[in-house]
């Protein structure tokens, strides 16, 4: 069994608004092993991105982490000082942001941006050494020679995304967080970028936490997945098992709403829409859309419970063994 790289316990994040607190993430608990590729799926607004930002401690006011712990290789990130946390970023935990096009500085050459980031986060090398290292990184992620001298606008979307990957792996962190890294790319480019990321992950043994809503992408890239709904993780398990025999009704409907290229299916969506997370009531938050709602679901909130080896679900139906 591999060592645990990340262990998140009961993490809750809320945003204060004039009309009460919005619970974006509620009591999220999961752990990641060394070298694994973990996916987090859910509809927009379910708290995926907030959870990622919380792991980096980059939640901005009016948002705040209310409770919980985030252990990265045994260190609780929530107990670190601001400066200690800043040093952890990029060196131990890094982010490949959504929409690379908006995360690069438009008036700085891309190579220089990465060199600057590396230096800021603890790489002590001479200028020449650092440049050599950046060139190495660029060829690792499949960028042509000389790309480090380009400005972001001179690169295509796929190339910019590769620059962001190069930055994220520059200090060989143990954990890389990827927030829909390919959602803005065309499918052909998406496949190439994911193939590169997978190859890098395998050669460096990084752990990758991939967030997204594309079930197909998750099915093809991840080892395990967690399904989020309305701020809570409702199911966790091996990707293959979760997708082939979902336990939570939401996972089942989510899976059924995804068309497959080779089967003509009758289009079927999930009825209703996600609830407001502003001071959510007791009980299961999926109950209004759930085909298997019972009385218990209205009054008590189901928590994530292990049902078999490596498989957990937050649903009253399952805990009663139905």
């Amino acid at each position, binding site marked *: 069994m591999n060592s645990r790289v990340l262990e998140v316990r009961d993490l809750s994040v809320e945003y204060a608004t004039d009309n009460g607190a919005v619970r974006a993430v509620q009591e999220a608990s999961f752990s990641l092993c060394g070298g694994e590729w973990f996916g987090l799926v859910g*509809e*927009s607004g379910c708290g995926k991105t907030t959870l990622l930002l919380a792991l980096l401690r980059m939640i901005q006011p009016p948002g705040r982490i209310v409770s919980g712990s985030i252990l990265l290789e045994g260190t609780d990130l929530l107990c670190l000082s601001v400066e200690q946390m800043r040093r952890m970023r990029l060196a131990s935990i890094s982010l490949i942001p959504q929409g690379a096009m908006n995360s690069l500085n438009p008036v700085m050459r891309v190579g220089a941006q990465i060199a600057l980031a590396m230096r800021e986060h603890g790489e002590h090398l001479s200028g020449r050494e650092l440049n050599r290292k950046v060139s190495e990184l660029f060829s690792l992620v499949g960028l042509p020679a000389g790309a480090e001298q380009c400005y972001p606008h001179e690169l*295509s*979307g*796929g*190339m910019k995304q590769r620059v962001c990957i190069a930055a994220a792996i520059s200090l060989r962190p143990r954990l890389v967080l990827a927030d829909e890294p390919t959602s803005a790319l*065309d*499918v*052909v*480019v*998406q*496949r*190439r970028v*994911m*193939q*590169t990321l*997978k*190859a890098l992950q395998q050669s460096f043994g990084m752990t990758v936490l991939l967030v997204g*809503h*594309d*079930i*197909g*992408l998750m*099915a*093809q*890239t991840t080892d395990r997945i967690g399904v989020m709904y309305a701020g809570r993780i409702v199911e966790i398990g091996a*990707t*293959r098992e979760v*997708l*082939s025999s979902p336990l939570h009704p939401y996972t089942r*409907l*989510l*899976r059924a*709403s*995804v*068309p*497959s*290229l*080779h089967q*003509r*299916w*009758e*289009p*079927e*969506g*999930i009825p209703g*829409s996600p609830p407001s997370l502003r001071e959510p009531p007791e009980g299961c938050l999926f109950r209004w859309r759930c085909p298997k709602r019972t009385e218990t679901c209205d009054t008590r909130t189901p928590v994530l419970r292990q049902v078999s080896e490596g498989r957990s679900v937050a649903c009253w139906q399952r805990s009663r063994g139905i």
Partner: protein
Amino acid sequence: MSALLQACGVSKQYEAGAGLWGGRRVCALTGFSIEFDDERPSFVGLVGESGSGKTTACRLLLGFIHPTEGSVRYRERDLRSLDGETRMRFRREVQAVFQDPFETFNPFYRVNHCLAAAVRGFRLASSRREEAGLIEEALVATGLDPAEVLGRYPHELSGGQRQRVMVARALLVGPKLVIADEPVSMIDASLRASILAVCRSLYSRRGICFLYITHDLTTAGQVCESILVLYRGRTVEVGPADEVIGRPAHPYTQELIASIPDPEPGSGWLEGLREAPEEDDEETRCGCPYLTRCAQAERQCGRQVPPLFRTAGRSVAACWLCERFGKARDEEVRAAARACGKGGA
């Protein structure tokens, strides 16, 4: 019999970076042909990656811009020279649904306003009561509860609801053709299916033609009767949906299909990395536009742009590998795009 809307070999060039010394010309769309016939309704998917000319095609068909070459004809008349009455009829029969359900509404008005404006603009109702009846009927047809939607402001509705209201608005005026440019790409996957199902039922029950413009080949394969694949402004493959997806003839369509991650785990999607550029520079060469990315390219491919050829099946493809089947005539291309389903000949 005259076609409702027809584009024959339409091209559009844009002036790029027009400065003091003139700019480059960019061919957004080259030799594009399509046809819609209200007597034989069709559900066509227009598929391509970003920059392939999808939106240019959409704007040409709606008459927002005019082609540099060729013409778009509404009931045999060029869109450039429609008289007032025919233009009104064109605007009524050919409706559009756009990508962003957040930007198509005026945030200051309740949603009733945009629906009522459509009814009044075309003088479809003689009384308020009749108007309300028409609006309710259109909303119900798109799966909305009028009581839940009417009287609300756009921001009070979800993205899925807003997009349904847009479909209802198009439906309200009794269209013969709905051109939908990425109608579900900003909507969650779980809601996409239900909106496409509405379009599908309007096609099969009411015989409304649809042009579904998208980058998502999977949903196009699910709902469309036929698919037209664009690559850098050129039509590379056209044919019945099951054929284009099941037996793609063009190497680009093949690559496109292989790139879609299947929701069924373990199909080796991450394997088989082939060294090839993801994107290449603007057309500085002659030859096939797909040449540098093509694994099956032959010497001939670099010399001349391939025209659309017939294939082993019912589709047509712009690839020299299909040359032996013979060149497809323009009618054959349009027939492949029509792939008449329901009510077909």
